[in-house]
């Protein structure tokens, strides 16, 4: 995301932000926006709104097809709920560490920001690892991507979510690296917060997927 100071800003504003601008979250250069929300954050919210319909479409497809597994294994035969519960717990905990990262960034404590970002990324990777393990196990039990409508729609839905988590992990690690090298321009706390928004969104989607796919019997 890039955010440009295209407004005319009197120099006086800059003095205030240079001293202590992070808490106001108005972006670097503190150019006032018409709504008071920062451009970057508004854009991220809009993007996440759009993502809701992406997952909405995928979840609808799954719900339509989850009972249609032909001679292949169905949801009730194949899901290992205790295992997935553990990996879900890991992902939910990563939201907590993400909050701690945002909190540290707001206090301009970038050492702890980095620490929490890396821990969040590790928890996210653990979740993705769990998913890879689960996919492999399902494949060996006879549920492939092309086996049945249930197989195709299950792997597509959870796969899309897994890709989202993976992209999130890459962003978290890149952010940690860029922060430690001093490469983040503008309001650092806001950058951390934006990636946090994405991360929490991916988590919330998982809560819905876990409930609909795994917990509700078909």
């Amino acid at each position, binding site marked *: 995301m*890039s955010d440009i100071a295209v407004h005319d800003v009197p120099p006086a504003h800059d003095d205030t932000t240079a001293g202590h601008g992070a808490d106001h979250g108005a972006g670097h250069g503190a150019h006032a926006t018409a709504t008071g929300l920062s451009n970057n954050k*508004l854009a991220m919210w809009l993007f996440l709104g*759009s993502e809701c319909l992406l997952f909405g479409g995928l979840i609808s497809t799954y719900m339509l097809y989850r009972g249609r597994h032909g001679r292949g294994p169905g949801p009730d035969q194949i899901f290992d709920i205790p295992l997935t519960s553990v990996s879900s717990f890991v992902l939910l905990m990563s939201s907590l560490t993400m909050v701690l990262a945002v909190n540290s960034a707001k206090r301009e404590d970038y050492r702890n920001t980095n620490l929490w970002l890396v821990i969040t990324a590790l928890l996210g990777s653990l979740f993705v690892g769990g998913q890879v393990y689960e996919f492999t196990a399902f494949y060996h039990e006879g549920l492939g991507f092309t086996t049945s409508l249930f197989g195709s729609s299950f792997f*597509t839905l959870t796969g899309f979510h897994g890709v989202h988590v993976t992209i999130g992990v890459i962003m978290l690690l890149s952010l940690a690296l860029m922060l430690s090298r001093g490469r983040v321009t503008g309001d650092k706390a806001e950058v951390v917060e934006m990636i946090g928004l994405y991360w929490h969104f991916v988590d919330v989607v998982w809560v819905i997927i876990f409930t609909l796919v795994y917990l509700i019997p078909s």
Partner: protein
Amino acid sequence: MAIIERPSAVPATVGPAGGVSAFVTPSKALGSYRRPVSTTGWKSWVFTVDHKKLGIMYGAVSLFFFLVGGCEALLIRLQLAAPDNTVLSAGLYNEMFTMHATTMIFLFVMPMAAAFANYFLPLQVGARDVAFPRINAFGFWLFLFGGIFLNTSWILGGAADGGWFMYSPNSSALFSPSHGVDFWVLGLQLTGIASLVGAINLIVTVLNMRAPGMKMMRLPVFSWMVLVVQFLLLFALPVITVALFLLSFQRNFGATFFDVNQGADPLLWQHLFWIFGHPEVYIIILPSFGIISEVLPTFARKPLFGYKFVVFSGVAIGFVGWGVWAHHMFASGLGPVTVAVFSVATMLIAIPTGVKIVNWTLTLWGGKLWYTTSMMFAIGVIVLFTIGGLSGVTHAVAPSDTQQTDTYYIVAHFHYVIVGGAVMGLFAGFYYWWPKVFNRLLNERLGRWNFWLMFFGVNLTFGPMHILGLQGQPRRMVVWPSKLTGQGFFNLAFWNKVSTVGSFVLALGVLVFVINIVYVWKKAVPAPLDPWDARTLEWMTASPPKEHNFDAVPTVHSLDEFFHRKYEEVDGEHGPKLVKVKTAEEIMAEQVANADTHIHLPSPSYWPIILAFAFPIIAYGVIFNRVLCVIGAAVLLLAIFGWALEPSVADDSDYDPPADGGESTKELASIV
């Protein structure tokens, strides 16, 4: 590019960019490269992030695709001119109508609306650029590459042939074995990403970048309609994205989503497609509604009648547009309750649309009408869209629609609303805003020819299709046999001929427009500053606008701000009347005198075009060779990191020292 600084204003270290350069040297963000800094030549276009240049490029590319799609349409009409005709083979005919629709919708009307939005939205809200200029550039390049990618299918084994809604299972590899559908799916994914990032960008621009005093209810109607369209895009595109992914996974990776042997539901595709497809209808038409809501008041010399009603009915169309998608599926056996609900919802949406028609008509009522070409196109929209709207209401009646489904009657309806509504509206915009963008007035004499040829062309081409459709001629059939021609007034042969002749009249009208462009470009007579006595902010700046749009960001006091700066109300003999107190030139002079100091504009960048270039590589890889996917992904990653590490405003050291040896090295454009 133009970073304008008055050398005397403030010490160089203080300023919006000062806080950035405190901890990073931007020009060294990724090692040793330098940013593009050209202000002239092709580089100034390829690496630009200026919304105006991008708008012009969007327009030029869309116009090109309009001509391509038009030629495809002419071939279709030639094939249907006579019974059992053999101009096109059956396979080629299928490709032709699929690509005609796809090109016209995704590569002409949508990006042409994006061209207008890009150019005029920041001007109308009083901003110096969009919120995310690099993303804007990325969106344009991705649209261009997506369009080229889609059309390369013609030479790489044949284009898509499943119709623009690509119904499954007809679009599966069994029934459509060439790579055409793969090209179509991936090409639409690319242009979809382009539209999505554009939508986010423009929404943030409208909401956040408004000039002081520019409240939402003072926004020009065009900006409002663009805003509604961007929200529709934001929520409709992900749904088609899902559908396209499912189809792609089925065709390329063996997934089973639309495999009826496995028990797949053929309605899944239809639902996903039309949940996108119906909002898409409003994505196509609302920008044009916005344009004529600017044109009509200007040339009627009256404020728009019921501004709030026009705005809110546009918003209402945006909302209700989500609840009518299944009226495209009345013939698919949804069940009586579903059909009834969608039937009623569809009739409901006629109300806000009708409100707009009434408001435009009442804007004309009692006005001192000035029949410029732009005005004639706008009135043409009212007339032709109303005709298309009326046949639309007959589709809302489900039993009647069941008879009309898949006949030429449907083709007649949507061409009246798309060509008569959306395209004519865009032409109204061309004639209205041409002097603003290019500082040339399009020739009015040629404009008359352009309008009347197009107006008669539309009616001659699409009017007879109502008759053809009600006589039962199905759409998408390569031939109509002579033994089914029929007799008397309603025979197919006569009306098919009329329609084909009409399509060439329409094409001639478009040709006159192209001639007009070339003619005024060669003639090179500058346009007056305010040729139409216009009302909105985009006219309150030079033509073409300077790179920073406004010398002084205007403070807005009312709707139609520019008009109210020119005119004041005084008491006359017969009540209050308007008196011109200032000319546009005087208002401009005030702006120059009070010019803002210290204007920072976004700097050009290599990354948007590089990032966009990664996508077609990946797409070709999906179809032909997965190695290309890996290469594309590598370019993608490189570009994303390069982008993230590049601050959006260039450092002083990226610019060459000014020739006059002044204090500031950023002085690339003069402010006066």
